[in-house]
C-alpha cells in the first residue's frame, strides 16, 4: 500500500535524524535539506538511498538535484512510489 504524505514526511524525518542528527520534529515540508537540515551533498545521497528502500521508489541521480526541500522529496515519492 502506498504511503500517505504524512507517512512520507515522518519517514524522511527519521532518515534525516539518523543521518544528520536533526530532531524529527524539525523536519517539515518547507525545510531545505542543505540550508536547514545539515544535509550536505554526500549525505543527500544517503537520504535518497534510504528513502528509495523505505518507500519502494527509484530516484535517479538526475532527479536528486531537484529535491531541495522535504516538500519536494515528499511530492516526488508520492508521485513515483510503486
Amino acid at each position, binding site marked *: 500500500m502506498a504511503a500517505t504524505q504524512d507517512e512520507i514526511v515522518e519517514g524522511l524525518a527519521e532518515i534525516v535524524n539518523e543521518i544528520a542528527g536533526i530532531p524529527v520534529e524539525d523536519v517539515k515540508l518547507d525545510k531545505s535539506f542543505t540550508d536547514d537540515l545539515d544535509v550536505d551533498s*554526500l*549525505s543527500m545521497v*544517503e537520504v535518497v538511498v534510504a528513502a528509495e528502500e523505505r518507500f519502494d521508489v527509484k530516484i535517479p541521480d538526475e532527479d536528486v538535484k531537484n529535491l531541495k526541500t522535504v516538500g519536494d522529496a515528499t511530492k516526488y515519492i508520492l508521485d513515483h512510489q510503486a
Partner: protein
Amino acid sequence: MSSTNRTVVVTGIGATTPLGGDAASTWEGLVAGKSGAKPLEQDWAADQAVRIAAPAAVDPSEVIPRPQARRLDRSAQFALIAAREAWKDAGYVGKAGESPAEDGAAHVDPDRLGAVIASGIGGVTTLLDQYDVLKEKGVRRVSPHTVPMLMPNGPSANVGLAVGARAGVHTPVSACASGAEAIGYAIEMIRTGRADVVVAGGTEAAIHPLPIAAFGNMMAMSKNNDDPQGASRPFDTARDGFVLGEGAGVLVLESAEHAAARGARVYAEAVGQGISADSHDIVQPEPEGRGISAALQNLLDRNDLDPAEIVHVNAHATSTPAGDIAELKALRKVLGDDVDHMAVSATKSMTGHLLGGAGGVESVATVLALYHRVAPPTINVENLDPEAEANADIVRGEARKLPVEGRIAALNDSFGFGGHNVVLAFRSV
C-alpha cells in the same frame, strides 16, 4: 620567516588508548602497570589463531555524536578525540582564526597552523566493511562517504579541519613508524619556519578479522590466547609477538617564541628527530640494528643533544623475538656507556602495539615521563632475556623515578615494516 632553526616545544597533549580515554587516564594506567589487552569475543574471532587484542578503553561512539561518527573512519574518530584534547590542553578554543573572544583563549594565525596525523594502515575497517556492503547489498548501498573515510590522510584532514589549519596538512606513512614520523615532520615544519603551531601524532584502528588474520599468519602477533594481559612481554624470554592495540596520541607542538608570547604551559622541548632506512628486508629487522644505529647517530649529529642528559628511552620493543634485541644493541652501539643511565621502558607491554598510532601515544608517554620525572614500567618481564640485560637497564615491574633535579632528556623509538627508523628526542624545560 627567515628563522630556520627555531626551538620547538610541546604545549598540549591528548590520547585515547587501551588504558584510558584521555592522556591523564592513560598515564595513570601506564604508571600503575596496567594491561589493556583482552580476549576478542566477537564471533569472527573464534577461528582466528590470534584471539586477543587491546581495544580502546573508551569506545569513540561514547564521545563522538553518531551523525558525525558515521562519516569518519574509526581511526579518524580516535585522531579527532586525541587532537581535541591536546588542542584544549594547549589553551586553544575552537578553530584558529574563529576563536570567540573568551578570557584566556589562545590565538594562532590559521596560515601559521599545521596538522600532521599519521596512521599505518588508514581506513581499513571502512574499506572492508563497505566491500561487504557492496557484495551483500549492492552498488547503490555503498556509502558516499567511503572515499574520504578510507583515505589514509582522512585523520589528518579531519583534524586540520577541526582546528582550522592552513599552513599544511600532511600524512607520512611508514607502517609502525608513522606516528613518530608525523611528529618529526611537524617539528621540522616549525623549526624551518613553515608554521608556528602544528597538531601532530598518530592513530590506528585495525582490530578487524583481516588484519588480525594477516599479522597472525606473518607470525608477528602473540598467540598467547590464554593469558591476554601477559601476552605482550617485551624483553622477556617467552615473548612471541605483539598484541594489536588501537587508539591515538597527539601533541600540540609550537615554536618556543609563540608559546612564550602567549604564556603557554610547556611540557617539554621537542628537540628533534633522527631518521634512517634499513634497506635490508621488507619486514625483518636488520639483526644488529644497523639502521636503528644510523637513526640514533642521525639524531645526535643533527640536534643539540648530549647523550649524558638522556635518562629515559621509550623503546619501540613490540615483543617480537628479533626486534626487541636489535634495538637495544643499537642503543649500546651508538650511546655506549651512557646507556647505563637510561631507564628503558616498553610501554607496548601495557598498551599493545598501536601500529601507526604507537609513535603518537608513546610520544605522549615520553613527554609525560619527563614532565612527571617518572619512567613507566615494562610489565610481564618474568625472565629477562640475557641479551636485553647485557645491553640496557630495563624498567621492570614498577615505575621508576627519574632524576628530580636538572635538565633531562628522553628518546622515543619507532620502527616500521619497510625498514623505517625514527627516533624522537624530548627534553625537560
